[in-house]
């Protein structure tokens, strides 16, 4: 599982089942003219070796949730509350600076959307990977560089030595995203959070990167959180799906159940509106209206203004979470 010639001096502990545990997370940003409620009581968990997809549209709170989990939001202005927020058992709500720096990159690493802006343009790729390794482990520069080269080979870069000495602007988006993944893996994290890792990439490159992430996750036994707006990415990569909308979790289920038998009207409408599922030019099933404004969310269920099945109660009261299957739950009055 580790490239030949590499050794990681600190074997990571295995055994704790729950890698991510988030309960009742709220994230808000006070503004001059009100409060933007980005996340309004989201809960989910990721177990060891499991891949969980968080799917949602812009403003659903999916990215903010991940940023909050790693405490990457500036506080203030951000306000984060939760009943629990742990990564590999470490309480992230109470973590001090030192703990945070130890968790980030080592316990949980992150891959971001736009690889073109994710690297510091003033340093080579190699320097940035070496820096990551040396931030967490006491190894010599030469040793770290050898490891970095091995990591680049691991993410299927054919000329790791050349990429190591390249500046970010000299590489293509696909190559940079591979390097970003290599950097994320450099300290053998237990959790990999990928926030729209392929959205900025071309179709063929997207498929390659998804396959790479999935393969590495299986091989290294990491927990994977795949944040995306694209149901196709979900279908290709994850075991379990968390559907977010308007800062809330609408539905959660194993991936097959989501695609075969979604319970929540929003998930079903989203599936139905996907273009290109059948051949021939045709009108699509559309969802009327647009996503809620996080500065002024609708009362009750955030989806009710666009929901074909909503009634008076949906507009007033947030529906309870209903267990819909062995590992499935959904928040809808229709299911109660």
């Amino acid at each position, binding site marked *: 599982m580790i490239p030949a010639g590499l050794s990681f001096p600190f074997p990571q502990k295995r055994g704790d089942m729950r890698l991510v545990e988030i309960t009742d997370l709220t994230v808000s940003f006070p503004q001059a003219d009100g409060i933007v409620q980005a996340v309004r009581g989201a809960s989910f968990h990721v177990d060891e070796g499991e891949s969980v997809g968080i799917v949602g*549209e*812009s403003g659903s709170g999916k990215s903010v949730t991940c940023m909050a989990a790693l405490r990457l939001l500036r506080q203030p202005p951000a306000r984060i509350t939760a009943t629990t927020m742990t990564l590999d058992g470490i309480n992230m709500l109470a973590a001090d600076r030192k703990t945070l720096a130890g968790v980030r990159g080592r316990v949980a690493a992150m891959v971001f959307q736009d690889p073109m802006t994710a690297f510091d343009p003033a340093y080579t790729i190699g320097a940035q990977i070496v820096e990551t390794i040396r931030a967490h482990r006491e190894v010599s520069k030469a040793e770290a560089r050898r490891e970095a080269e091995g990591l680049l080979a691991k993410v299927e870069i054919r000329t790791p030595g050349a990429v190591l000495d390249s500046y970010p602007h000299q590489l293509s988006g696909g190559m940079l995203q591979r390097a970003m993944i290599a950097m994320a893996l450099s300290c053998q994290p237990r959790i990999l959070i990928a926030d729209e890792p392929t959205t900025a990439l*071309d*179709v*063929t*490159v*997207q*498929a*390659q990167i*998804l*396959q790479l992430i999935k393969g590495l996750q299986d091989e290294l036994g990491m927990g994977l959180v795949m944040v995306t*707006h*694209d*149901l*196709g*990415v*979900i*279908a*290709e990569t994850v075991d379990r799906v968390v559907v977010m909308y308007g800062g809330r979790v609408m539905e959660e289920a194993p*991936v*097959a159940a989501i*695609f075969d038998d979604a319970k929540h009207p929003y998930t079903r*409408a*989203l599936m139905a*509106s*996907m*273009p*290109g*599922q059948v*051949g*021939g*030019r*045709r*009108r*699509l*099933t*559309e*969802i*009327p209206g*647009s*996503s809620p404004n996080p500065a002024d969310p609708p009362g009750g269920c955030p989806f009710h203004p*666009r929901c074909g099945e909503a009634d008076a109660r949906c507009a007033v009261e947030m529906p309870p979470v209903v267990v819909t299957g062995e590992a499935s739950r959904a928040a809808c009055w229709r299911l109660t």
Partner: protein
Amino acid sequence: MTAPALELRGLTKDFLLPGSGWWGKPRTVHAVRAVDLVLPRNAIVGLVGESGSGKTTTGMVALRLSEPTGGQILLDGTDITTLDSVALKPFRRKLQVVFQDSYSALDPMLTLAQIVAEPLHIHGIGTAKEQAEQARHWLERVGLHASYANRYPHELSGGQRQRVAIARALILKPTVLIADEPTSALDVSVKAQIINLLQDLQAEMGLSILFISHDLSVVRSLTDTVAVMFNGRIVEQAPTEAIFTDARHPYTRSLLDAVPVMNPRDRRHRTFQTRAELEAATPRLSAAALGLAPDATARLVRVGADHLVEAILT
């Protein structure tokens, strides 16, 4: 026989890039290389490809927003390639565009009614009152209630802004609409709305749309014909379903293969070809079987009724 709504003949566009490094020489990039494309009347043609394929440049040159290096642009059978800005103005009415990022394309200081009426104003069509009325009519036609007339772009969601951009493009009743990734920045739940709107308006107005996109799923639901661009060339062109079920060019096949499958039970391991491998994989067809003369240079060859593939004839 009437002329097609828009026809590109041997369209070519080179860019000169400044050299890099201390002693760098300027270099030429062949963004679009001898593209032939017909946009028939009353049809939607998809132009698909990845970044750097030349699809956006093709659109910009066809709009005369960028000057071609070579080739011809025919609008309604008239060659508009070399018309100056005065002579071009009446043709601009017939050739309109919608971009991906409608926020930067809408003047933030104008109300939606003013934005939509602006083309009428520029072309001096109707009185101020008639223009305002038309604008309101078009706002409603693209699904925005008349009460939106006095709002400003920043008050709208992405989908609503794209509706405004479409209304502004269509108020002059053009024959051709070039839509460059108009749904790419939109939320999944809103994308379908805009796709439906474009289909409805196309059918009602008998419009011809050149739909430039990297999103094969959208292209499948929206277009009648698809042209696939790779390295500045069209490598395959066919009726949409033929592209999706019977692709002949290796690049088209690699594109289709990369599209995520919307069924978690159909997950599979993919093998990928490098760009160089795809460039070298130009199909070889038997000239004799097609009744054509052998040709060692790759060119578009007709392999079915409306199915063209770039190939070498042996």
